[in-house]
């Protein structure tokens, strides 16, 4: 048994007679053999004794004639009329006992006690005789027994105009499974309904009042909501298999492939403990390696359009890496995933999904047989020479590679070895590359140091796999004859004018001269004007491995201090600036 309504409301008045009916609570059957027994649940309040309910019909009656003093005896939050009396009615399919109120279905009855006598026939409008002011919409559950769902007659208003005859009907364009039982004035559902076919029935109820003079009609609309139960099995639309290739991206949390499962029932997210139509999945494997490395990510959402404008559920399944996969790992397997609609009553509540997984190993090797870079003699300290990178290193995720620079021939004099100080390698943290830069400009001028040969060693961190390649750095052109013994190069970023900037021999400048970037935008712009050692790397919004070695190289990208003027800050450096931005040490200013 269940209540097709959450709340019953009615007005009660002073002077209403003992034994008069107030309203009828109706319950609906889940099984054809059930019969309801109604009972009052609340006994806390003193006013409960004013009422009793007919055990078989659910009609609520007055136990006493309501007096003016009854109204004033009520405790209530509000002083004004009406005062609300709340009762609870329970229903049971066996003769009830009071203790069952907490476990059986109950419904709330809210009676508004008005501090006045009932209106007389001349005072009331016909619509008041027919319908309560607030009409709440009923609901019925799909696949349940047909039967009465609401008493349309307003019992409390029947005696107001005793000479009128009131009857009801359902106005419906097309055939609907609803009708009015003329003998009882009950609204009845005449057949079982299917929510997946129609979720709401919009009915018009007509109330026909035959007065002394004529017949009048009053209309009220009523929406009957159909409640869902899990009576559809989940299904796939099209493919139940997804090919998955795991190669360069093998970091924990990466998701691959998507398979969809559909279910025409709704999956409620509220309340959270509701289990109806929630799908439970199982990985169909005993392989502990697969279980440790892969998991399934499940999400679901409600959709309407694809289910014929009735709410249904789309489930999304993705394969997800639970940890970083080693580069040496190589295998392929078919992974089954069993999805089970646990509340679906039949045996067909499951769907088997497949992920056809191929894990390829990632070789750690250099595609370049040799690297060869040419650097200007004029290059200043921290000038970037170039990048080294193993094959596909830009695509790597979850693979960690570090680089080292070594001298080819170790059996040389200390004097000759010192040449190799000219170049160093720094590790860019995020993109698996090594960056070469000018480390020592003094040795550059020595004739024997003009062509240097190194070996680059790349090492993958998890398995310590190594790769090697040759690297040649040659220095060309003429060294700056002026100020050759300059101890420290100035910072390009200090310069505020183009001419001054381009005449400066600044730190980290591969050509030996600072470069000017001319911005043209108004307001705060990413293209602000500024002086930089190398427009290819500074400013580019990223404080790289070389730049982070000395704040004076590119404070525009690396400053962590407050910036003055019009700007937008980034985690490090200036994201956007107003006019020209310049910096002293790590402190930057932007102005027009």
């Amino acid at each position, binding site marked *: 048994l269940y209540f097709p309504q959450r709340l019953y409301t009615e007005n009660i008045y002073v002077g209403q007679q003992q034994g008069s009916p107030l309203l009828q609570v109706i319950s609906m059957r889940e099984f054809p053999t059930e019969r309801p027994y109604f009972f009052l649940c609340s006994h806390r309040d003193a006013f409960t004794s004013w009422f009793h309910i007919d055990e078989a019909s659910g009609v609520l009656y007055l136990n006493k004639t309501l007096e003016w003093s009854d109204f004033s005896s009520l*405790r209530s939050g509000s002083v004004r009329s009406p005062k609300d009396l709340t009762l609870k009615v329970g229903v049971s399919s066996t003769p009830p006992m009071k203790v069952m109120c907490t476990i059986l279905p109950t419904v709330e009855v809210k009676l508004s006690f008005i501090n006045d006598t009932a209106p007389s026939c001349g005072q009331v409008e016909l619509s008041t005789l027919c319908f309560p002011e607030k009409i709440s919409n009923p609901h019925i559950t799909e696949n349940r027994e047909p039967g009465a769902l609401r008493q349309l007659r307003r019992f409390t208003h029947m005696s107001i105009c005793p000479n009128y005859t009131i009857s009801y009907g359902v106005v419906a364009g097309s055939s609907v499974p609803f009708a009015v039982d003329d003998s009882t004035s009950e609204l009845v559902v005449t057949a079982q309904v299917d929510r997946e076919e129609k979720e709401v029935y919009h009915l018009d109820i007509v109330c026909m009042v035959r007065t002394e003079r004529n017949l009048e009609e009053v209309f009220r609309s009523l929406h009957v909501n159909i409640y869902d139960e899990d009576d559809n099995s989940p299904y796939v639309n099209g493919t139940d298999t997804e090919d998955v290739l795991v190669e360069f991206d093998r970091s924990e949390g990466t998701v691959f492939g998507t398979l969809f499962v559909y279910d025409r029932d709704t*999956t*409620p*997210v509220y309340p959270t403990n509701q289990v109806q139509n929630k799908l439970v999945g199982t990985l169909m494997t005993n392989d502990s390696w697969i279980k440790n490395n892969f998991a399934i990510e499940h999400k679901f959402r409600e959709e309407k359009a694809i289910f014929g404008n009735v709410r249904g559920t789309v489930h999304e399944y993705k394969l997800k890496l639970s940890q970083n996969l080693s580069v040496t790992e190589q295998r392929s397997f078919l992974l089954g995933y069993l999805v089970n609609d646990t509340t679906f009553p039949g045996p067909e509540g499951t769907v088997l999904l497949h992920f056809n997984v191929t894990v390829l190993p990632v070789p750690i090797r250099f595609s370049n047989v040799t690297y060869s870079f040419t650097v200007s003699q004029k290059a200043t300290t921290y000038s970037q020479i170039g990048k080294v990178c193993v094959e596909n290193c830009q695509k790597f995720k979850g693979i960690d590679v570090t680089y080292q620079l070594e001298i080819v021939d170790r059996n040389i004099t200390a004097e000759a070895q010192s040449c190799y100080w000219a170049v160093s390698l720094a590790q860019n943290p995020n993109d698996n590359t090594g960056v070469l830069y000018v480390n020592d400009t003094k040795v550059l001028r020595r004739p024997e140091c003009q062509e240097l040969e190194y070996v680059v060693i790349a090492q993958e961190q998890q398995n310590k796999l190594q790769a090697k390649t040759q690297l040649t750095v040659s220095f060309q052109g003429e060294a700056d004859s002026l100020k050759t013994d300059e101890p420290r190069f100035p910072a390009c970023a200090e310069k505020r004018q183009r001419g001054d900037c381009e005449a400066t021999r600044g730190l980290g400048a591969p050509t030996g001269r600072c470069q000017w970037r001319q911005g043209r935008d108004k307001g705060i712009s990413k293209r602000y004007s500024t002086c930089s050692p190398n427009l290819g790397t500074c400013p580019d919004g990223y404080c790289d491995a070389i730049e982070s070695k000395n704040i004076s190289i590119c404070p525009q990208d690396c400053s962590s201090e407050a910036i003055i003027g019009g700007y937008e800050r980034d*985690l490090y450096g200036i994201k956007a600036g107003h006019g020209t931005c310049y910096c002293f040490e790590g402190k930057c200013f932007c102005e027009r």
Partner: protein
Amino acid sequence: PMDCLRASEVCNQNSQCSSRFRIMRQCLVGRDRTTMLANRECQAALEVLQDSPLYDCRCKRGMKRELQCLQSYWSIHMGLNEGEELYETSPYEPMHLSDEFRLASIISAMDSASAKGNLCFDTGKPCNPCLDATKACNLNDTCKKQRTALLATCSPAAPISQAHEPCNRKRCHRGLRQFFDRVQTEFSYPLLFCSCRDKACAERRRQTIMPACSYEEKSKPNCLELRRTCRSDPLCRSRLADFHMNCQTTPHSITSCPNDNYHGCLVSYVGLIGSDVTPNYVDASHTNITISPWCGCRGSGNHEAECEAFLRDFRENTCLRNAIQAFGY
């Protein structure tokens, strides 16, 4: 009625009442209403308490120890109410008439502000009452200080200490509650309820509460779930009940507001800002005001009608809309 702090003091002076009150609070700790109601001892406690001053005590907005007062209130009323109902009784005292006089003064303040603001027609720019309200706030020490503090709290975390969070929502909510508690309504209400004739103004109005932090989220929770979260917190629960009581569209009044009290509706609306059901203007439309908390009704299962009713109380609330529109004129 007595305030609930006072009422619980009175109750504590009576040994029977205080012991029942203690039992009642224990009954509610589990938060499982049905088991609680089944418990005989809890039932008995509830019966005794119904005759105590705690039964119909109330709290005042902004009173000292407001939260404790609300906790006392709910420790009785959580037992009385059935939990899943649409509307609950507000623990706050009804608005007094004197408050409405204050509203009149705010409106007249707005009038004189907009009279001054009308000068903006001479500059050829469209008149922007929301901007006027900001000017007024910036030139008032308290308002400027509180607004600046609020904006700082609700801005994305300083990039230096960047976690992945764009901002701290909880702190922002606290900041919003503080802002509306501490700033005189003469300054705060015009920021929120300015009447707009163009998009620029309406966008400014929408941005008043820093919606990027306090309102929008990546996903929209289900409204009923949101309501349940709110009801597990005494302050949010009280503010929501108060909003429903004071802003419920009613056919029995000219203005559609309960007792034709616009001010009551606006005050209870502001009371929700900084709670789990923080409402806001959903867009920068100046012709059609739509207000909603950040939630939707997807996934409501068989409770969809109830969820939509909850949402309608914000999105299609004639009382609230009238109250906002009336404020600006």
